C-alpha cells in the first residue's frame, strides 16, 4: 500500500497551481462579473495549456493524466476560482466524459478530440423544471423521424449551456418504458436549429460559471448522434455522474485546503491579547478540526480516483466524495471565516466569495440527500435489499 503521490502527479500539481495562480487569479473579477463564462483569452490559454483534456488519453487529444490527474486539476482550479473550476468540471467531467465513456470511435473523433483540445466546450443537459434529483421524471421527448430524432423539451440549470458547442441531452424515446429502457442520450450541437438558450440564472455563488435554461424546439438530431444505445441513456447519464461526483469531492478539497491555508497564515500574523491568535486554543482547535477533515477527504478522493483509474467499482465511494467533500468544504470555509472575524466578512477578501461558492456543492450533480440514498442503496444491495428513492 503506497499513499504517496507519484512524482508525475506532484509535478502536475505544481504545473496546475502555477497556471491557476498566474493566469486565473489576476482575472477573478472579470470571471465573476461575466455573464458569458470566463474571458475568451483565458479560455484560449487554458486550451493551449491542455486543461480541457486532462483525464483523456493522448490519442484523443487529452493529457493522459487519468482521473487522479483530473482530480488534482480540479482541486487546484477550485482553490483559486470555483467558477472557473465549475466551467471546466462541467465540460470535462460530465460533458466530454459521457462521450468518452459511451461514445463510438467516430463520435470520439468528431466530438471528444476537439473537446479535449478545448476547441469545443461541452455541457450535460439532464435537469428539467420537473426533473432534478428525480431524473426518472424527465419529460423531454425524442421522436424518431426517418434517420433522425426530433427533440422537444426544456432543460434547466445547465452549466455552460450558453457557452457550449456540444451538449449531451437525455430524452424520452419511449415514455411507456421510462428510465428502464425508454430514455436515450443524444449528442447535440448548439449551432443546430432548435437549440435555444432561453434564460440565464442569477446565482448566489459560482457566478462566473454560466447556468441557463435551454429550450429544445423541434431539434433534429441525426441517428448517429445517439450516445450509447437507444433506451439506455439513463445508464449513460448515471454512469457519467458517478465520475463527476468524485471531482466535486476534489473541488471541495481544493477549496477547503485554500481556506485552511489562509486561516493558518492569518492566525500566525494577526495579534490579539499580546500575541498571534495561533496561540489561542480556540483557534488551534478550529484549525485542528479543519485539517483533520481535509486529510480524511483527501484520502477518500484519491482512493476513489485510484478505483476509477484501476477499473474497479467506485459508485459508492464517488457519492461519499461528493457528500463528505461538500460538507467538509462548507464547515471549513465557515471556520476560516470565523478565524478572520469581521475581515473575512468583507467583500475584499476571498472568504466571502468562497462561502457563497461552497454552498452549491451540497446541491448540484445530485443533492447530498440523493448521495445518501445512493450510498445506502449500495450498502443494502449487498444484503439483498433494494432501496427505492
Amino acid at each position, binding site marked *: 500500500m503506497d499513499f504517496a503521490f507519484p512524482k*508525475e502527479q506532484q509535478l*502536475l500539481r*505544481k504545473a496546475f497551481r502555477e497556471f491557476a495562480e498566474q*493566469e486565473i487569479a489576476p482575472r477573478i473579477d472579470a470571471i465573476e462579473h461575466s455573464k458569458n463564462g470566463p474571458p475568451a483569452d483565458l479560455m484560449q490559454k487554458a486550451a493551449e495549456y491542455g486543461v480541457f483534456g486532462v483525464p483523456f488519453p*493522448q490519442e484523443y487529444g487529452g*493529457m493522459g493524466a487519468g482521473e487522479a490527474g483530473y482530480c488534482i486539476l480540479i482541486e487546484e482550479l477550485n482553490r483559486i476560482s470555483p467558477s472557473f473550476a465549475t466551467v471546466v468540471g462541467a465540460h470535462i467531467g460530465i460533458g466530454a466524459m459521457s462521450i468518452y465513456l459511451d461514445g463510438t470511435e467516430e463520435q470520439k473523433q468528431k466530438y471528444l478530440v476537439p473537446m479535449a483540445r478545448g476547441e469545443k466546450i461541452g455541457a450535460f443537459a439532464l435537469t428539467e423544471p420537473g426533473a432534478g434529483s428525480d431524473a426518472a421524471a424527465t419529460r423531454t421527448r425524442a421522436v424518431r423521424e426517418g434517420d433522425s430524432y426530433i427533440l422537444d423539451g426544456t432543460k434547466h440549470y445547465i452549466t455552460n449551456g450558453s457557452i457550449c458547442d456540444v451538449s449531451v441531452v437525455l430524452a424520452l424515446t419511449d415514455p411507456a418504458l421510462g428510465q428502464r429502457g425508454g430514455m436515450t442520450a443524444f449528442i447535440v450541437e448548439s449551432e443546430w436549429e432548435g437549440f435555444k438558450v432561453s434564460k440565464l440564472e442569477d446565482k448566489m455563488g459560482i457566478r462566473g460559471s454560466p447556468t441557463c435554461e435551454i429550450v429544445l424546439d423541434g431539434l433534429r438530431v441525426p441517428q448517429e448522434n445517439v450516445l450509447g444505445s437507444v433506451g439506455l441513456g439513463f445508464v449513460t447519464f448515471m454512469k457519467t455522474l458517478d465520475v463527476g461526483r468524485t471531482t466535486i469531492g476534489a473541488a471541495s478539497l481544493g477549496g477547503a485546503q485554500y481556506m485552511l491555508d489562509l486561516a493558518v497564515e492569518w492566525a500566525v500574523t494577526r495579534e490579539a491579547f499580546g500575541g498571534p491568535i495561533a496561540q489561542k486554543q480556540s483557534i488551534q482547535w478550529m484549525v485542528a478540526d479543519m485539517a483533520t477533515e481535509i486529510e480524511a477527504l483527501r484520502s477518500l478522493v484519491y482512493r476513489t480516483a485510484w478505483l476509477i483509474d484501476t477499473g474497479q467499482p467506485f459508485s459508492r465511494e464517488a457519492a461519499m466524495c461528493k457528500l463528505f467533500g461538500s460538507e467538509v468544504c462548507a464547515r471549513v470555509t465557515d471556520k476560516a471565516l470565523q478565524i478572520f472575524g469581521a475581515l473575512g466578512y468583507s467583500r475584499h477578501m476571498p472568504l466571502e466569495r468562497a462561502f457563497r461558492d461552497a454552498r452549491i456543492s451540497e446541491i448540484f450533480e445530485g443533492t447530498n440527500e440523493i448521495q445518501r440514498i445512493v450510498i445506502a442503496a449500495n450498502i443494502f444491495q449487498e444484503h439483498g435489499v433494494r432501496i427505492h428513492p
Partner: protein
Amino acid sequence: MKIVVTIKQILDPAGFTVNRRRERVFVNREEYIINPADLNALEMAACAKDGRQGVEVIALGLGPARVDDALREAIARGADRAIHLSDPALADLKTDAAGAARLIAAAVQKIGGVRLVLCGAVALDSGAGELPGRLAEALGWPMLAQVHSIDQIGEGQVRVSRRTERVESDLPALLTVPHDANQPRHMLGVRVVQAYRQKSVAAWGLSDLGFTPNDLEPLTSVAGRRFPPERTPGTRLEGSIEEAVQSLVAQLRAKELI
C-alpha cells in the same frame, strides 16, 4: 545545434525561516525548486528553439537523487532531454564551484557538438554567481554575462542583448542569464506526463567522465556563515501629496541622488 542549460536545485525559500538573532536557519518544509535564474536560462534556450529546426535543448544537473525531479521539470518546461551528473562518491565529497565546473565542462564535452551553454547568472541560495565563469574557463569558451536575449544565432556566431548593449561572440560560448531577462513559459501538463512516461534522464557518474574524487579537490572552502544585516523598513512620507512630493524631492537632493 545543441544548447545545454545548467540546472541547480535549491531549497525552496518559502519552506524555511531565518532567525537572525540566533543566526540560524530553520527548515520548516524541506522542498526544492529549480534556481529561478536557471528557469530564465531555460526559457532563453526554448525561445532559441521556437520555430527553428534542429535545435536540441539539454538540461544538465549535478547533485543527489532528488535532482532528477528538477531535471524532469526542466523537460516539462521545454528541454528535450536531461543528463544527471550523480555519483555515490559525491555524497561525502566537499567540492566547490571550481570542481563542479570541471565536472560539468567534462559532461558538455562528452555530449559533443554543444554550441551554447546557458547558465542562470546567480543561484538564489549562495548568491555567489561563480560557477558560470569557472565553467567558461574550464571549457575555454568566451563568456557573455547578464544576457537578456539572444537576438541572432547562427552556426558560428551569436548576437545577444544585455541591458544597455548588443554583443557578438563566436560560438561555442557560454551565456549567463539574469532573473529578470524574461518570463519563463508555463510548464505544460502534457509535457509533465511525457517527462515521466516517455523520457529518461541519463545518469552519468564520475567514471563516465573520466574523473576520480581526487580530481574534484576544492580550491576554496567555506569558512563560516554570515547573516546579512536586516533591512530597515523605509520611511513613510506623511501629509498631502504635494507635501509628500516636496519632502521626497528634498530628501533625494540632500542625498545628491538628483
